[in-house]
């Protein structure tokens, strides 16, 4: 099966959770962050779902205190997830089966008002 090429966006303060060197690589020290990452189409023999992406982000992109982002199968409350322009709660949330070329956005409601 083909790998999944995903566009990941972090904004409204969520970008502040990403490692500085990754933000610097992306050319944005401040403001919205957009990354492209590739995930395998299957994880542990099953189709890759949003939950797997959260683990990937936690383990590879988040700076210190990774468990603050995603822990015990739970995304930190207050971070909104938008998949292809829709609130992920409209569909299956963490169980959503990722597709090639999906865009997944993380918007923080916890930062600055």
């Amino acid at each position, binding site marked *: 099966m083909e790998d999944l090429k995903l566009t990941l966006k972090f904004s409204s303060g969520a970008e502040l959770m990403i490692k500085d060197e990754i933000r610097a690589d992306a050319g944005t020290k401040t403001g919205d962050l957009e990354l492209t990452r590739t995930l395998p189409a299957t994880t542990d023999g099953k189709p890759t779902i949003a939950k797997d992406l959260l683990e990937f982000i936690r383990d590879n992109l988040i700076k210190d205190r990774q468990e603050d982002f995603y822990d015990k199968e739970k995304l930190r409350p207050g971070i909104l997830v938008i998949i292809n322009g829709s609130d992920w709660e409209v569909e299956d949330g963490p169980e959503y089966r990722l597709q090639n070329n999906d865009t997944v956005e993380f918007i923080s409601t916890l930062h*600055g008002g």
Partner: protein
Amino acid sequence: MPRLCEICQNSKAVLRRPKTAQRICKQCFYHVFETEVHNTIVDNQLFRRGDRVGIGASGGKDSTVLAYVMKTLNERHNYGLDLYLLSIDEGIAGYRDDSLETVKRNKEQYSLPLLIVSYEQLYGWSMDSIVEAVGRKNNCTFCGVFRRQALDRGALMLDLDHIVTGHNADDVAETILMNIFRGDLPRLGRCTEIATAGDGYIVRSKPFKYAYEKEIVMYAYFKKLDYFSTECTYSPNAYRGYAREFLKDLEAVRPSAILDIIYSGEAMQVAQDVQMPVAAQCERCGYISSNRVCKACTLLEGLERGVPKLGIARSAKASLEGVPDVAKRGGRTVERVHFDKLWENARRMRLERSENNTDVCTGSACAGVCNAQNTGSLTNM
């Protein structure tokens, strides 16, 4: 096949409402969100036709959405309000200067007049210079106390009748929890009110009191509104941070928790025999205060005399004895304008406007200065 909107049964659902768990489309979301804010405004009779209303604008998500929605509703429902953007520049490099750039863009985008008042201009001390003097530990106290008064000062400079702020349901619920945990009864009473007499001069209200933060953020996202988000450079408000996390955890289990807490806060009443502080005027600047000298004046005196702990120390009677009058300091002494003077200026502006303009009165703070007929509260629109 995508899920359809539960309201119009027609378009693709893009949002699950935290309040109702309904899955709805973009257009229906705009409609219900705006209508709920409109209902909040009308049901609570927040404004009167002709009111001069300042939108407390930080450039952040809440106040940006508030400015957009206020402008939209004012036009759609013909409220007859004069809207202004009012921003406070605390003087925090790398934080507020960036967010004020956003407010300046909002001014153009929404064609609303903008007034920025700065701590430096009002008090002689920017937050950067205060932090230099007091360190990072207690600086939030200064910032909070100064902001409250700065908004009133700015509002009087514009002769406003009313200030609206972007506080949303999540903020109100958080504040209720914090005030309960601290046993702060006067604040508990005030924080649940949708409109308060402010600190004496200008009415303040929260049109987003019942709007969930998630919906405000999603509204800004779908409308692609231009807002700024970052953390304050100085120490975050740790106590509020815990209350916020706690509230978010509750919300995850039970989405109505936020409105439930607001309801609880509203339902709580202070027993008759509890002594509440009596409001009076600060003898130095005229600001409303339950003490002889208001908190802002006390803090400023501390800064100017080089004892920044003054007004912060736990013992109410932090002594000034033995403290040298001149100390190393980063701010400058400015002649603060007395509130009576600001009030007088505002009255004069109002009188001048009414003389030059016969057909419009009148705001709720007019108090009969201009002889025109008051057209009453905004109801039944």
